[in-house]
């Protein structure tokens, strides 16, 4: 009798432990929420006004400071077109990284896009370079790049977003979280996403929300971009 109870107790205990384990596993498997780390392992900060968001790290540097990190991305023929002390915006996000800078006459914007080159021709960290012509200070199109892949082999889409008047933060819906980019140095913001990238059609869609300095929404729109030019 005592033994039976013991067996029952141990059975129900095992069941409870199993259920707890299942819950834990499911919780772990289902943790598609906010990533806790950026690409190189830095802790991911949250943008308070947007619950569950991740702030992509953004820094304003000079070309000379970046040194080989930038030079390795540039085509040799372009080096003279960019001032030695050019202002460069470096961004490191959850799955992408980029450099953005203007040419000497501010007639165009360059971007170095980070990730794995599936053709294996470009060593990390850069897998693509984009150039957008400025007409009256604005880009003609978002200069979509779909050539890169993230570390899991998913196609990464990169595109420029032009901040609207008063925008200080740009949010891109990444599915389970929103990635936030700070508007820096008066340059268009190079955003990255592995969501809604159709590499076989050379197209991608980005769900973009722009916020003011206090995190108030200014504009929400879908950016439909295509590779061209």
């Amino acid at each position, binding site marked *: 009798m005592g033994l039976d109870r013991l067996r029952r107790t141990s059975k129900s205990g095992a069941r409870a432990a199993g259920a707890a384990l299942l819950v834990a596993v499911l919780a772990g498997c289902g943790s598609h929420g906010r990533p806790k780390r950026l690409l190189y392992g830095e802790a991911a900060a949250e943008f308070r006004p947007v619950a569950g968001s991740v702030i992509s790290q953004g820094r304003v540097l000079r070309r000379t400071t970046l040194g080989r990190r930038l030079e390795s991305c540039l*085509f040799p*023929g372009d080096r003279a077109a960019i001032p030695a002390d050019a202002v460069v915006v470096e961004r490191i996000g959850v799955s992408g990284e980029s450099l953005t800078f203007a040419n000497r006459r501010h007639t*165009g914007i360059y971007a170095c896009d980070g990730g794995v080159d599936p053709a294996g*021709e470009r060593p990390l960290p850069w897998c693509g370079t984009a150039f957008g012509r400025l007409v009256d200070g604005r880009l003609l199109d978002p*200069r979509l790049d*779909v*050539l890169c892949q993230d570390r899991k082999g998913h196609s990464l889409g990169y595109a420029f977003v032009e901040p609207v008047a008063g925008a200080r933060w740009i949010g891109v819906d990444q599915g389970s979280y929103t990635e936030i980019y700070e508007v820096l140095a008066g340059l268009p913001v190079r955003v990255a996403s592995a969501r809604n990238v159709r*590499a076989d059609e050379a197209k991608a869609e980005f769900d973009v929300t722009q916020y003011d300095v206090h995190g108030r929404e200014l504009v929400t729109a879908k950016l439909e971009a295509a590779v*061209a*030019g």
Partner: protein
Amino acid sequence: MKAFLVCAGVGLVLAAATGAQAYHRFWASCNYDAPTFMTTMTRDAVQDYANAARYEGYQWGGGCWNYDDVDSYPNDALGDSSTHGEGGDCSGFVFKTWRESQDTWRDGRYYWRALRNAHGPYSASAFKYGNGAPNHVISKSSAATMDAFASDWHIGMVFYRSLYGGDQIVEAKCETCGTNIFYRTYRSDSSYGGVARWGWTG
């Protein structure tokens, strides 16, 4: 007055429908068929393909044309591929002419029919940097027939090499100038680099 308004309304509807139909007639012929895998790709054959696309127009982000020697939908706005005009843009034209794959890691040869709407994953800048398994950077002095010169914003292929400073370049240039062969000095222009396709068979 009432009759006049009715007539004016009918006229406006008919005018709009005529425009839409003219637009639709061309785009309705475009398709998304699979390309044909080829084992060969000669410079002569590719030159013929590019030559046949002359006068067919330019479409930003586009890649569908017929062979009637007329741009069916000229003067679309730049930066919007959804206008569905006729012709490729510069990089889309090179992509189809060079028989490339939509997958950047494939270096095989894929024949795209003119009416197959395809742009490919490369911008002019991506070609310039030799991105993609089928592409590579070359010195401009070695650029031969159907190799290309690419800048950050444009790419054109060498149709005939000239001995007098410039080249005859076949390119999809702009909405107003369309796709054609033009005399260009890209070879001596520092903003342009040389780029070529791997895998010629003749």
